[in-house]
């Protein structure tokens, strides 16, 4: 049998992860330096060899050129085993009745997670799942993680101890994060699409608007927050009612405005590109059959440009989920709060409490919108049955 190139890479990573790298870290309390633990040390006597066996089989399946379904099943089995056993490791390493001790996944665990996620992604790509199938896989993965969380088997892990200590504020910040992300996206779509249509129709405006938005895009987010403090502060002080609805130099308002400004370029640019891509014959015919300008826009141009515009929305959503983390710097809230608190306290698990949900949210948003773009594209909906 012939070797698979990616399989070789995965085998090397897993080899390093199980032999050299520590699987979990034990710390006597939250901020002291940790003691790295090997995979076999971290787990109960029966579990360590079991995990090694599952990993070994999965690596072998990945190493040779096997059917994609086998590879997918092997990678999922390894991922599920990793997820379940890291909770068990926390249970195993924490001394009884000790509430100060912290156990967190170490580099070995993360490398294994990365290696098998890579194998799973590669297998999924080879299977060419339909958009609907991809969403189903996403929902199943979400349900699995939700189930593990609900079962309490991860409760001894350090990151969940951090969560336990601030469960209320976690959900408040999650709400703020999503409000910031979705709110600025909606505002950008409401402003950006009409602006894009205008730029498409008026040649002179196009260069100006796109250049300005390009420049905005290059301003670093921290600098943009700084720039916004003065004007928003002025508005809060001088425009009646502005302060009452929450507009101030720091906090949610500047974060919202900054995300909105960053969102405009992808929305406007993709609207312009999408409209420019409408076949000239279709536009000429639309006029020729007697459509009004409005009918032509809504019945011909928008439907044909929709997949490209939706791609812009996808870029914005994923970008905003990541960028909204920075909002915490100016008191805008969101998952960034935990990231920056964690950095301040050198508590890496607190950083993870902010970072992991952000990554998962971005990943889920990208998967769902990619599926939506594909469903709306001509090549998908228009192939013959």
């Amino acid at each position, binding site marked *: 049998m012939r070797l698979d190139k990616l399989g070789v890479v995965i085998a090397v990573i897993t080899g390093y992860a199980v032999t050299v790298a520590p699987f979990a870290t034990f710390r006597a309390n939250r901020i002291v330096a940790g003691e790295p633990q090997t995979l076999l040390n971290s787990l109960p006597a029966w579990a360590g060899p079991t995990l090694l066996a599952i990993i070994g089989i999965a690596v072998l399946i990945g190493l040779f050129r096997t059917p994609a379904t086998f590879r997918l099943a092997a990678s999922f089995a390894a991922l599920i085993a990793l997820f379940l056993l890291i909770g068990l490791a926390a249970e195993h390493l924490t001394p009884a009745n000790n509430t100060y001790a912290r156990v967190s996944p170490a580099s070995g665990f993360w490398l294994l997670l990365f290696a098998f996620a890579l194998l799973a992604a590669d297998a999924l790509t080879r299977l060419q799942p339909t958009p609907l199938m991809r969403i189903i896989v996403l929902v199943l993965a979400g349900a699995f993680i939700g189930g593990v969380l609900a079962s309490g088997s991860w409760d001894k892990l350090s990151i969940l101890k951090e969560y336990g200590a601030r469960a209320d504020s976690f959900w408040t910040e999650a709400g703020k994060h999503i409000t910031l992300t979705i709110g600025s996206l909606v505002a950008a779509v409401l402003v950006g699409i009409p602006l894009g249509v205008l730029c498409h129709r008026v040649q002179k405006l196009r260069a100006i608007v796109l250049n300005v938005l390009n420049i905005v895009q290059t301003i670093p987010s921290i600098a943009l927050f700084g720039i916004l403090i003065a004007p928003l502060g002025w508005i809060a002080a001088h425009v009646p009612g502005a302060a009452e609805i929450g507009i101030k130099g720091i906090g949610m308002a500047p974060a919202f405005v900054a995300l909105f400004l960053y969102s405009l370029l992808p929305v406007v640019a993709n609207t312009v590109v999408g409209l420019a891509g409408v*076949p000239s*014959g*279709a536009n*000429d*015919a*639309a*006029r*020729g*059959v*007697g*459509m*009004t300008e409005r*009918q032509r826009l809504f019945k*011909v141009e928008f*439907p*044909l440009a929709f997949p490209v515009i939706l791609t812009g929305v996808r870029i914005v959503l994923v970008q905003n989920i990541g960028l909204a983390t920075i909002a915490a710097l100016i008191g805008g809230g969101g998952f960034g709060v935990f990231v920056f608190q964690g950095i301040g306290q050198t508590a890496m698990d607190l950083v993870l409490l902010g970072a992991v949900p952000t990554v998962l949210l971005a990943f889920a948003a990208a998967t769902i919108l990619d599926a939506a773009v594909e469903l709306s594209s*001509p090549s998908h909906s*228009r192939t*013959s049955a």
Partner: protein
Amino acid sequence: MIEIENITKRYGAATVVNDVSLVVEPRTVTVIVGTSGSGKTTLMRMINRLVEPTSGIIKLDGEDNRSLPGHELRRRIGYAIQGHGLFPHRTVAQNIAIVPVLLGWDKAKIDKRVEELLSLFQLDPTIFGPRYPHELSGGQQQRIGVARALAAEPNVLLMDEPFGALDPVIRSKAQEDLLSIQKRFGTTIILVTHDMEEAIHLGHKIAVMDGGNLLQYATPAEILANPATDFVATLVGTGDRPFRFLSLNSTGDAVEPGNAEGEAIPASASQRDALAELLWSGRPALPVINEAGKAIGRVTVEGLVKRASRPAA
């Protein structure tokens, strides 16, 4: 009837159409011929006001075409373009139904009309109705483009190089279809092309344009016999002239009494085809049969050659 009176179109300093006047009789096919940049498409697009003239008037059945808003005017005029211009995101049936939908016809009437048109163009409505344009061949797309233009039963049909993207075999079939549909509905057709052969074949009258000017507006026979300028003569092609002339009339018109040996030619074939058959088979005469298959006489090489010579002015 379409009356074009002193129409001029300028873009900045460039005059694209220069003071053109012509009258298109109802229920006829008028072909506007010219090279690219001659202003032929612009002239046609001013009829349904896709382009607004700089000066001059266009009247449809005596009524100024500016008496209606542009989009309402265009719903009354059929419009078919090169490369069909179908909407890629709509099915064949939805494409054909565009104008009736814009006019607010009720659904039953629209469905019936779509079915009727698809059948007319020899496309099975149950098979082709739900398909998308990209699933059709070039010839089928072109037929759908014409069917869409005819959907609301317009009196006038404008066609911009409608057969330009088709291969020669499908093109001649599409031309025959167009002629039979024109006879059937009595539609007034204005067709733009750069192909003089197509113009002679389809047009009751031909308008030759060059550099924005109308050089000649006459019947094909007149244009072949007496081209108004050297440019028109070049377009007609001196080498092909006698054969194009013969192609204007049917064999039935050249029948002489008498018999001939060998395979017969139908009276409906053009005289050009008859001459070609005579030359190719090396016979001096061909028997001619009518639609019923009955012999009605013969055509001779000598007779056809006489007909191919330039008519006395």
